[in-house]
């Protein structure tokens, strides 16, 4: 009907991508009297803001945010379940990032996997051959060689009090067969030999990393990489375009640990529909539209994201991710692990940063740190 309705759409990330804007414009055109108030909010404050609004009883109609918030939103009855159409075929593991006890709470809309970027100029300057390391030992040896023979650091590590400190760590943990939460029982599996091995490796990496990893977050490592200060670091597919053209970069899957195979953390950001905005129906419709088929493909391809849908299975051809560096990001999807879904995701994050900073700053032994982290995580669950 012709009632004027305004959807409040919070778009985390501080910027509205053209692909999304196009969908929204079309949506407005198709629904008479409907306007969409798109509010782009930078990541640093966006999720807090959406949650604050919801907590205060004035939720946005729809929001694009990290999937990690889903459990919190769902448990507190702030969002409605997503209604994902059958013809939308997600990549392996993607739906896990929005599924809680069988219910899907969001429409995954952006997907990332990670791989190792190597600056071959530096590696070669250190007198080594620039071959992708496949194991941690190889990776460490390469980094050590760089430190010994050049002014650069071997590897860039993120260790700041920030979400991607945990994300970076999980890339290694999942490449070592580690598990954070048992999907079946929902219990903490953090206190394990795999975690110990990973943390120990992190400790080793810290000795060949850039100065003071605890002051760095992942996206700043890009600047170090571009400046030739680090020989390698783990980053998403968008990194390739952000790196200086004159750098001879090599991309490789995250090397495998002693107890596992090369993996990655699977992170998605989702469109969620809030409860109580009064426009749930419309919002669902918009969410479905913006996350399906061509709309989604346009976003992924224009942005350079890991493909979130199995576009091949959906009958698309001439896919952007079939060549170049892309295999390094798509190959590990099946062996990757999800960002743990926890209601209190800030606590989860601080359990990890505490553990990681502990080893980087040599505050405690690996054993103690992992034991404590395991207990803290169990408490938080």
């Amino acid at each position, binding site marked *: 009907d012709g009632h004027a309705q305004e959807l409040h759409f919070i778009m985390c990330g501080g910027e509205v991508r053209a692909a999304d804007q196009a969908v929204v414009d079309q949506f407005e055109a198709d629904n008479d009297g409907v306007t969409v108030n798109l509010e782009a909010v930078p990541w640093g404050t966006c999720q807090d803001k959406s949650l604050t609004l919801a907590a205060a009883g004035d939720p946005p109609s729809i929001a694009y945010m990290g999937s990690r918030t889903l459990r*919190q939103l769902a448990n507190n009855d702030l969002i409605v379940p997503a209604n994902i159409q059958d013809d939308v075929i997600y990549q392996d593991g993607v739906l896990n990032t929005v599924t809680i006890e069988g219910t899907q709470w969001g429409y995954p809309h952006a997907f990332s996997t990670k791989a190792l970027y190597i600056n071959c100029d530096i590696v070669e300057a250190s007198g080594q051959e620039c071959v992708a390391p496949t194991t941690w030992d190889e990776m460490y040896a390469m980094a050590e060689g760089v430190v010994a023979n050049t002014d650069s650091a071997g590897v860039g590590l993120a260790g700041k009090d920030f979400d991607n400190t945990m994300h970076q760590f999980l890339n290694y943990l999942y490449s070592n067969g580690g598990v954070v939460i048992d999907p079946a029982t929902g219990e903490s599996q953090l206190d394990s030999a795999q975690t110990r091995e990973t943390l120990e490796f992190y400790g080793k990496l810290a000795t060949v990393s850039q100065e003071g990893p605890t*002051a760095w977050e992942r996206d700043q490592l890009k600047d170090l990489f571009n400046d030739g200060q680090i020989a390698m670091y783990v980053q998403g597919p968008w990194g390739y375009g952000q790196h200086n053209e004159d750098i001879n970069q090599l991309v490789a899957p995250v090397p495998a640990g002693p107890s596992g195979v090369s993996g990655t953390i699977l992170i998605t950001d989702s469109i969620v529909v809030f409860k109580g905005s009064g426009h749930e129906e419309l919002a669902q419709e918009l969410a479905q539209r913006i996350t399906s088929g061509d709309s989604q493909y346009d976003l992924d391809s224009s942005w350079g994201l890991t493909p979130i849908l199995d576009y091949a299975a959906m009958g698309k051809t001439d896919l952007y991710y079939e060549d170049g560096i892309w295999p390094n990001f798509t190959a590990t999807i099946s062996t990757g692990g999800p960002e743990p879904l926890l209601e209190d995701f800030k606590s989860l994050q601080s359990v990890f940063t505490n553990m990681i900073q502990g080893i980087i700053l040599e505050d405690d032994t690996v054993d103690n740190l992992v034991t404590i982290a395991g207990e803290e995580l169990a408490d938080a669950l």
Partner: protein
Amino acid sequence: MADVTQQIGQGTFKPKAKTLPEAVFAWLLIGPAMLFIAIIVAWPLAETIRLSFMEAGLGGEEYVGLANYQDLVESRKFHQTIVRTFYWMFLSVGLKLVLGLIGATLLNAAVPGRALFRVLVMPPWIIPMAIGMIGWLWLYNGYFGVLSGSMMSLGITDGPFEFLAYKRSAFYSAVVADVWVGTPMVTLFFLAAMQGVSRDLYEAAWVDGAGRWYRFRRITIPQIMPVIVSMSLLSAIFTFNSFEVIWILTEGGPRSATTTLIIDTYKTAISNFKFGEGSARAVIIVILLGVFALLYLNVLKFVNRKYGTK
């Protein structure tokens, strides 16, 4: 001019307005401000206190009595946070006072250009804290910042030094940034106080042979002592609740090295949506500050006795 009054004022004088009773008038004056605060702040305040007895999150809430407080009382981490917060406060306030004194003395010196210098002290006070802290983030950056860069080129360090990476250095770096924010206001208030000191006293002391340092120590300091004391209390409250500085520089890390009570409270209440526990922290902050202010007022009394005129 015999009948001046007849000529000047004809007729008797009628009062214009009936005067209101003092108390009624006073409350008419205060009323709007009170009402405004009541509507905007009092309810949230009461809500905060109420919530501190609740287990409350994004969903419902449940009365838990003193459990939130009990948890805090028993938490070793929280104790450490309190100790750290007070250390943070004393250190930062102390530095602000010392720097403020030095700065005010310099700006008070009769040298050409001091009007300009006085304006140049202002920016950290004026600039929104969030923006100022981004400046400090740059400064503290080990690879791209001027501090580490200068240290390297001066040969003090071999490689870059990341100020915010280590527990101690991050804490002290945050203190320095906080001092930077708070110093201008302290400086300017001290400066104003110094200008209020009677010149006679300095001249008398000078005639008696007292040098600059002696005059500073024995006249300036005691004379501006009331301002020092009242500024330090105000500054202590601000510093205790200083949020943006730490939040933007370190978010409380690494390993909680810069987590003060206000950061802890914000993380708990706003980031983690544990409203009940967060509120309990907020209430504890007010209690601690209240007790601190009370102690301080006693110090003030003592100072007044020592340095006052009575």
